[in-house]
């Protein structure tokens, strides 16, 4: 991965009021989560639980409870209702705009990025792309016959609707950390709907 691409990504992520971290191993990611979690638990999207069971173990090893929202709609929503920190998987990070592309088809995956106060997006280090066209190519490759829900997320939720005054954290998270993790990989599993519907 070209370092200048990551440098570009970092400056755009920071410009969007988010943070970029780089970790080689899962334990580094777990350390951050342990440091950030304030209520003794971390909500983890089902996609992450499936892709990176090691992370869940490491989080538990640090004395934290791991909540994976699953079950009926109301169970899923209740699981995340009070979450102060949630972890989701990014398929791609886009250097041009500092965005991460997150595919979250199942309700359990969606609620994590929508309802957590602090959102941690783990992106495989190899999945840093240069431009929005790369995100378009990803979307095109996954289009066709199946349902899916994918979002480019660029920084924390914000509004300027009252007197143009910028306020961070409206309906969505008010803090976003993008973690580039060398140990993470999207390659081994199907994405979006196909993954979630299995």
């Amino acid at each position, binding site marked *: 991965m070209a370092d200048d691409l990551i440098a570009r990504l970092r400056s755009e992520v920071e410009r969007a009021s988010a943070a970029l971290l780089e970790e080689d191993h899962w334990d580094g990611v777990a350390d951050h989560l342990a440091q950030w979690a304030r209520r003794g638990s971390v909500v983890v999207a089902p996609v992450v639980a499936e892709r990176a069971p090691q992370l869940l173990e490491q989080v538990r090893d640090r004395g934290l409870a791991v909540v994976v929202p699953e079950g009926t709609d109301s169970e899923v929503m209740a699981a995340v209702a009070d979450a102060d920190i949630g972890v989701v998987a990014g398929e791609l990070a886009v250097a041009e705009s500092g965005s991460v592309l997150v595919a979250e088809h199942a309700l359990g995956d969606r609620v994590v990025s929508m309802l957590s106060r602090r959102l941690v997006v783990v992106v495989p280090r190899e999945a840093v792309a240069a431009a929005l066209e790369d995100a378009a190519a990803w979307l095109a490759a996954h289009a066709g016959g199946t*349902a899916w829900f994918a*979002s480019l997320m660029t920084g924390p939720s914000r509004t300027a*609707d009252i007197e*143009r005054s910028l306020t961070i954290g409206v309906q969505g998270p008010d803090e976003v950390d993008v973690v580039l993790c060398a140990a993470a990989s999207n390659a081994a599993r199907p994405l979006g709907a196909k993954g979630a519907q299995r």
Partner: protein
Amino acid sequence: MRPFQERYAAALADENVRTGLLAFQRGWRDTRDAQIAELEQRTGADFDALRGDLAARKDHVRAHWDHYLDAFTAAAEAAGATVTRVTTAEEANAYVTGLARARGSELVVKGKSMVSEEIGLNDHLEAAGVTPVETDLGEWILQLAHEHPSHLVMPAIHKRAEQVAALFERVLGREFPADDIPRMVQVARTELRERFLAAGVGLSGANALVAEGGSVMLVCNEGNNRMSVGLPPLHVVTAGADKLVATYADAMAQVRLLARSATGQPITVYTNFVTGPRPGGEMHIVLVDNGRSAMAADPDIAPALRCIRCGACANVCPPYQIVGGHAFGHVYTGAIGLVNTAWHHGLDAAADPQALCVSCGACAAVCPTDIPLPAQILEVRNRIMTQRPQRTDSRVRAVALRAFATPWLFAAGTRAVATVTEPLREDGVLAVPARLRRHPEVGRRVGWRSPPAPARRPARDRLRPRRQPAVPRLAETAVTGRRVLLFLQCITDRFAPTVAESTARLLRAAGAHVIVRRTQHCCGLPAFDSGQWETATTMVRHTLAAMEGADDVVTPAPSCVAMLAHEAPRLLRDDPDTAAGLQQLSGRIHDIVDYLTGPARLPAGSLDTGDRTPVTIHRFCQSTNTLGRTGEMEALVRDLAGAPVTALPEATVCCGFGGSTSITNPEVAEGILDRKLANVDRTGATTLLTDNPGCMLHLKGGAHASDRALTVQHIADYLADRLPAS
């Protein structure tokens, strides 16, 4: 919606509207310009190339509309969505309301959707016992206040924090300090959170419909849109098929310009692609026509369907700054609202706010999809004049223009007024006595701007062949010996004749042989601008006949150049002979600034009298927006006269003279003029130069009425004053 006059009066009465919007427009301009400059630098393509590319992508889809509609429908349905096409707003409302009721849902959460505003969906849902809750913070505030959005992107831009605090106190029964905006935002989060979790239906619009994969693209900053569509079991989209794009790459081309144009951000926080329902859920996509097919079938209007609802055309609009979107527009606000309203809500709804538009062309300069908004607004005006001749406004315009278009009547009228008002004449304007100005109707019209005074001797008389003053030739130029027809312009001729004399002297100094024909009258702009295209066409033909045989045509008024070069071809579509004549001539029609900058360039320093008094410069809005002028006047003043130029803040913003606004809606023209003169004050300069006689008279009248110690001059007068004595 309330009648226009009520909305207009309410907007004027609310001081917050203009102060809030002024700050917004200034801030937006800076951030948007910086973002676009950065994008240009990064991509190596200029804004025109970038928007041309986006426009081409959208036009391609429109040219193959049925194909892409079918492709989108097939892909969305393959992903499990149901796509329904409806013709009218009523059908759309019935469909969505029926769905909600059939699913037993009493609560609907809504992301921002202009189509739902367009069709009035909330009222229908409520009538059917379904409660719609707006979840965009601005829309939610307006819903609580029982108001409509006043801007496409910032719906509550007209509200101050104190007003929101008071509203929240009233509705929520808690106290809110007006300066604690974060707290107001947080309360919206808590109040709305339960609704998201409880709603049975999520409603959204669409920023794009991607045919390639059947995805609905939705952008938002708050996260409300994705929660509205992503959490409830039923997601209903209402959108126009104009939102179709062919591929995800096309969607990204739109994304790149959308947020930059809307809020000056590089990208919105969330750009969601929703394809089919979530597991166990349902998704319905309702494609609403409501006039769109008719727009597509009309070649002059079809480009309006490229609109990506960024709101940029409102963010640069000077009259919008004064009255906001409740008056400037209908459901759709800003320049695009002056166009598409005619198709979505009818010609009468579109007619009311037309006179607010000053035809400055600022909207077209920033539109990221390159919609020819000013030309389309004029198309709509023309249709109002021809299809609604019985409207009072149409009748008044018809009578006034008929008098104006008759040369002898115009001449006799201005001469008569000149004679009667002679005692009130002061430096080209009428000093209206204070006791008269105290009368509300008079004050409203002339209290803020002393009206231009007609001259007793028009320019055409002053420039009779034998009465022309001798002017020493300053240099051999590319125009030396050329027969240059001086097109006086109707306003200059009768209201500012010295400007024509100065223009003639400058031309002679460059060695031109100046011809002034008495057959000339008006280029047709006022008639064209009023939508009276038959009259305008006659005037164009007459003008072209008066120009016959000249090597070049030069006028002190760039407005006439813009009219003849850019608008007249539209009028001559059915008259190929005259159009060909115009085509031959059009490269040779210049305004004096353009001529002096180009072929008639005088030697550097040749008008330098040693006077170093700083001047500031207002460029006619269409010189910037239509003719693409940048620093020509500044260069002339510095290079020829050697005087320093102090940059005018917001130099490209209109002065308020344009269109018929200063007559029909004087409050708006007054507000725009105030903004301009306040900017002039900030420069500290005591001399203000401009290139257009209309602007000159307007600015001079404003300076006079406000007792400013400001000399306002047409640049031709300024330069000619510095010609060496013969």
